[in-house]
């Protein structure tokens, strides 16, 4: 039953006056929510976009197809083109719109201001508004697990991290990986190569070749495809890791484990709050504990003691006894950045612009 009281009647009137063509009834509870997803690529990329689309499907399953209707717009470039897409979706009366790339921010903030009754959700964003929330995952917690495996298994003591751009999220992924590896091997070195793209498989593959030719025997990457893993397989080094999804099909021997992004818990929560009429602006940042970051199956070739150590880190992060950034941490220029007994907390996280000692970047 929709309850039309004076306040709601006023809201409907206000909305109708302001947006005569749209006519979204601004009632509290909803029978059915229309949710739209804007993706930077296509769901078949086996990585980032795949993860978001899987989250959407699981969200529909959890809430029921009779209560939520979704639309997905793929291949939306960051910038002005995305602004047009967000505006059109808002005009079409979608109740909640998820933008799943960092670079959609300006467009979303602008459109959100023009459509105050539509809820916007910005993945990996850093700024909120009254009808715009951000959500992200603590991918770096997964990196600690990969670092532990790498530190224990690497024979050369040199690991590689193929990154996209030196943004805080990537820098902190590198630090988390490296600090965990150093706990297992105090002389561990992490070589960082930025390929200046989220997506250039041929360049990622060449970067992996260059790293392996220079002594690297474990590789992790913060780009969206399996290119580096395939080179690891071809060259027969100790291994690499899937990013965003399990990629063992591409490298059955070299694929040690993977960090899998699970977005469904957040999508269920967000869409349900619109159904219930209690959606609120906020910032969500869950990790291993919240089930948004999951470590995939371990390769059988990993020795039992390494799996045990990796699991100890994973479970430690979940129960809070292990922190990815616990001091003392010295940076690669020799400056003490985090005192013993201290940690890098959530507030400080985004401001870190240095690499830990032993990172070659």
């Amino acid at each position, binding site marked *: 039953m929709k309850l039309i009281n004076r306040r709601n009647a006023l809201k409907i009137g206000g909305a109708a006056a302001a947006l005569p063509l749209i006519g979204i009834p601004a009632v509290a509870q909803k029978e059915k929510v229309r949710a739209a997803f804007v993706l930077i*690529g*296509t769901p*078949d*990329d*086996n990585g980032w976009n795949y993860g978001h689309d899987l989250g959407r499907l699981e969200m529909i399953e959890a809430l029921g197809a009779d209560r939520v209707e979704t639309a997905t717009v793929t*291949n939306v470039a960051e910038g002005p083109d995305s602004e047009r897409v967000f505006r059109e979706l808002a005009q079409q009366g979608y109740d909640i719109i998820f933008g799943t790339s960092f670079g959609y921010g300006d467009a979303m903030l602008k459109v959100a201001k023009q459509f105050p009754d539509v809820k916007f959700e910005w993945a990996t964003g850093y700024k909120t508004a009254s009808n715009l929330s951000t959500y992200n995952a603590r991918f770096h917690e997964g990196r600690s697990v990969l670092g532990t495996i790498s530190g224990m298994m690497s024979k050369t003591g040199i690991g*590689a991290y193929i990154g996209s751009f030196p943004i805080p999220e990537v820098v902190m992924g590198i630090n988390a990986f490296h600090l965990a590896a150093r706990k297992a091997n105090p002389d561990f070195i992490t*070589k*960082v*190569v*930025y*390929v*200046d*793209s989220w*997506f*250039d*498989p*041929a*360049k*990622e*593959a*060449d*970067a992996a*070749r*260059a*790293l392996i*030719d*220079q002594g*690297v025997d474990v590789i992790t990457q913060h780009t969206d*495809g*399996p*290119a580096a893993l*395939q*080179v690891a397989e*071809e060259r027969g080094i100790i291994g690499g890791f899937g990013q965003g999804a399990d990629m063992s*099909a*591409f*490298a059955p021997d070299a694929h040690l484990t993977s960090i899998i992004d699970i977005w469904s818990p957040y999508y269920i929560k967000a869409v349900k709050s619109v159904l219930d009429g209690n959606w609120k602006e906020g910032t969500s940042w869950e990790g291993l504990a919240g089930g948004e970051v999951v470590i995939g199956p371990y390769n059988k070739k990993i020795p039992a003691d390494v799996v045990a150590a990796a699991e100890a880190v994973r479970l430690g992060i979940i129960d809070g006894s292990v922190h990815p950034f616990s001091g003392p941490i010295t940076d690669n220029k020799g400056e003490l950045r985090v005192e013993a007994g201290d940690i890098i907390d959530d507030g400080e996280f985004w401001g870190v612009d240095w690499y830990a000692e032993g990172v*070659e*970047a």
Partner: protein
Amino acid sequence: MNIDLTIAIIITMVGASTPLLLAALGELVVEKSGVLNLGVEGMMLTGAVVGFAVTYTTGNPWLGILAAGFAGACVSMIFAFLTLSLFANQVATGLALTIFGAGFSALFGQSFTGKPIKLFKSIFPDYLTEHPILKVFFDHSPLVYFSLFMVFAVSYFLHKTRAGLVLRAVGENDHSAHSIGYSVIKVRYGAVGFGGMMAGIGGACFPLLLTPQWVEGLTGGRGWIALALVVFSAWKPTRLLAGAYLFGLIATMEVYAKAAGGGFRIIPSELWASLPYLATILVLVLISMRHKMSSSAPACLGKPFISSN
């Protein structure tokens, strides 16, 4: 720098250069006939997806290469028909072909994403491909030897055969060629088809030689570098070989230098990425300083041919 690393860099450099060399060689012949086809990137993407699909389905990379060349030639015929028979603007049609190739390859490739194939590696025996020194000659994909053969084949064709002379005549002065009885349009159809085939095979290098997978946009803009290389080479196949390997070397040195760390890091990443383009501009300036540009670019490049009778 030790000898092992030098050899490793050379092998990676040759691989990175080969798709550029193949696509640029095709475009060179197209431009020599007086046609400017800016759709190289689209034809490469088409070749990449078809080459992947056929290799994945049949397990035979040779068939994949053949199919990629055929597919590239087929899409180039759309361009040829629009520009040569219907006199559409070559620049606009070429750009449209790139957009078409990107869309077509994405659509056609949907069911092939997330599936691995094997790289098309050297067919020489192991004692040659694993020899610490000799592998610099033998540890390459057959596509590499094919591209080198094509450099000399195209060079011989253009400069030593009658058919090559006719093709150049059509590109330099279409009306004269027409008036002495050569079919300008037929020659140009042939050149555009050859260019499409070479771009298709160049595209197939991505899944077969560089990274054995298909994903949308796999070629990552290399088609544009191939176009720049043709100008860089002043329309000479042997200079194109040098140019393609120079571009490949710059791209390869970028990742090796970043992986090495240390002093190499002084050069910022963004500068590395722009070096190929800076090199093109530099060479263009040098060429135009040495002699007039008109002596290298085909005189009828990009102009439609409308028969006067």
